[in-house]
């Protein structure tokens, strides 16, 4: 049944239906309403989750690591500075191969202190070893929270998964969301089977041991193998979820009118919705334009994306965060993926939407028009910035 809800509520609903064993969260700013809704479910006895309200985000992720090593199904949520404080332990969660699922309400990192949307928090976690998925809408955030659980817990993967949803644009605005039935979600995620759970006291195991130069490298290589296993599992989870939900999840990214497109936008998150309107407007005028919306950002599906983009003339990659001192991180992903192709479009890079700066349909139409004259090897362009 279709309902109207905010992105926060949609994520909390997915969590309620999954009903993890443990949710550890820092309960105040920059926490989201996700934790507030979930705490209410626990207080009302709707879920039987152990809610651990800790004294910092560092402790939140630490409690998640402990609970996951014990053998629990674990979820959490955070935003901006909260993720920054979690980072140290997020790396450890990934290295210990703990399938912690986290909603990240994307908000700008300080300073200056801001609170509004951009992707600087997600970019901070780029090399943490966590899988990262970007949602365009509250519906996608809901759906990917459920898919993330299955992806994270797959025996080939066993990694933390971050589901990104744009702060305010998605988290605080109400949209139509069609949740599944509780029983459908429970059946889809199934029973969690932990590996070497610490609570199995008859079979003791040692977690988080020291690894010196003779083993550290091998353990990190094994982590990379887990990341490399993600795309195949992601596709199979999508396929199963698409059958269950009737929604068209198919692919590591979403192509939109990309088939014959000469000029293409690449974006992550809610701006994809605006970009679709911009593409439609220009298509109506006969312009061959399209959009590639990134779903799976880490691991980055470089060959699939390169194949989808190599036929274009010009690609505009939009990064919603700086990677100071170089081009945007998504631009670097895309250009390195295209590097080995015989056919290579010109790729330009826009930084946009920082600290919650709005991006309009008109601006994106303007981008699709002005990149006609793009030259190879240009530096950064800025969208919506006062020069």
């Amino acid at each position, binding site marked *: 049944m279709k309902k109207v809800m905010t992105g926060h509520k949609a994520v909390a609903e997915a969590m309620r239906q999954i009903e993890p064993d443990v949710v550890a969260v820092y309960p105040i700013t920059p926490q989201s309403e996700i934790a507030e809704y979930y705490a209410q479910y626990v207080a009302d006895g709707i879920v039987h989750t152990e809610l651990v309200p800790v004294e910092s985000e560092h402790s939140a992720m630490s409690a998640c690591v402990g609970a996951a090593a014990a053998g629990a199904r674990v979820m959490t949520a955070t935003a901006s500075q909260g993720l920054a404080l979690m980072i140290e332990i997020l790396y450890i969660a990934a290295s210990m191969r703990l399938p912690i699922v986290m909603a990240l309400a994307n908000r700008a990192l300080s300073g200056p202190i801001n609170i509004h949307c951009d992707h600087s928090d997600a970019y901070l976690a780029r090399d943490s070893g966590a899988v990262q998925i970007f949602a365009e809408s509250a519906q996608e955030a809901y759906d990917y929270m459920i898919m993330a659980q299955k992806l994270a817990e797959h025996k080939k993967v066993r990694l933390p998964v971050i589901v990104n949803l744009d702060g305010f644009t998605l988290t605080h605005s109400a949209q139509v969301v069609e949740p599944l039935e509780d029983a459908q979600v429970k059946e889809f995620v199934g029973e969690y089977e932990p590996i*070497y759970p610490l609570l199995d006291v008859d079979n003791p*195991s040692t977690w988080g041991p020291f*690894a010196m130069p003779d*083993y550290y490298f091998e353990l990190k290589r094994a982590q990379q193998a887990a990341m490399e296993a993600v795309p195949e599992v992601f596709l199979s989870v999508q396929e199963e979820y698409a059958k269950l939900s009737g929604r068209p999840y198919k692919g590591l990214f979403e192509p939109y009118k990309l088939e014959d497109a000469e000029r293409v936008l690449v974006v992550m998150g809610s701006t994809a919705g605006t970009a679709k309107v911009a593409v439609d407007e220009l298509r109506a005028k006969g312009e061959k334009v399209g959009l590639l919306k990134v779903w799976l950002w880490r691991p980055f599906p470089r060959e699939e994306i390169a194949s989808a983009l190599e036929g274009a003339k010009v690609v505009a990659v939009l990064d919603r965060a700086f990677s100071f001192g170089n081009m945007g991180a998504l631009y670097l992903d895309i250009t390195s993926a295209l590097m080995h192709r015989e056919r290579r479009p010109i790729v330009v890079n826009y930084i946009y939407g920082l600290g919650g700066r709005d991006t309009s349909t008109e601006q994106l139409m303007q981008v699709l028009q002005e990149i006609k004259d793009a030259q190879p090897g240009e530096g950064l362009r800025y969208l919506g910035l006062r020069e």
Partner: protein
Amino acid sequence: MAVELKSWRELPIGGVIPGGATPELNKTGSWRSQRPIIDLEKCIQCLMCWLHCPDNSILIKDQKITGVDYDHCKGCGACAAVCPVKAIEMVPERGGA
């Protein structure tokens, strides 16, 4: 002792060691710069050193202190500090453990 190192494909997930009590397999006392010497003639068997040792390195048998596990003692000196009859002396290490 030559140890055959494993490939990354052979390692348990997340670097977990299936099994507990791994310190028994590893001698970790090698970075000690001073070692406790217990004078068992002076010792009154109060077990304060055993209680305070952070590395479980005070050896006991039949509830009596018998010595120190130098394979795991780090030489922190907590035992000497808590001994009420000063029966433990910290002596600088010379050479290996």
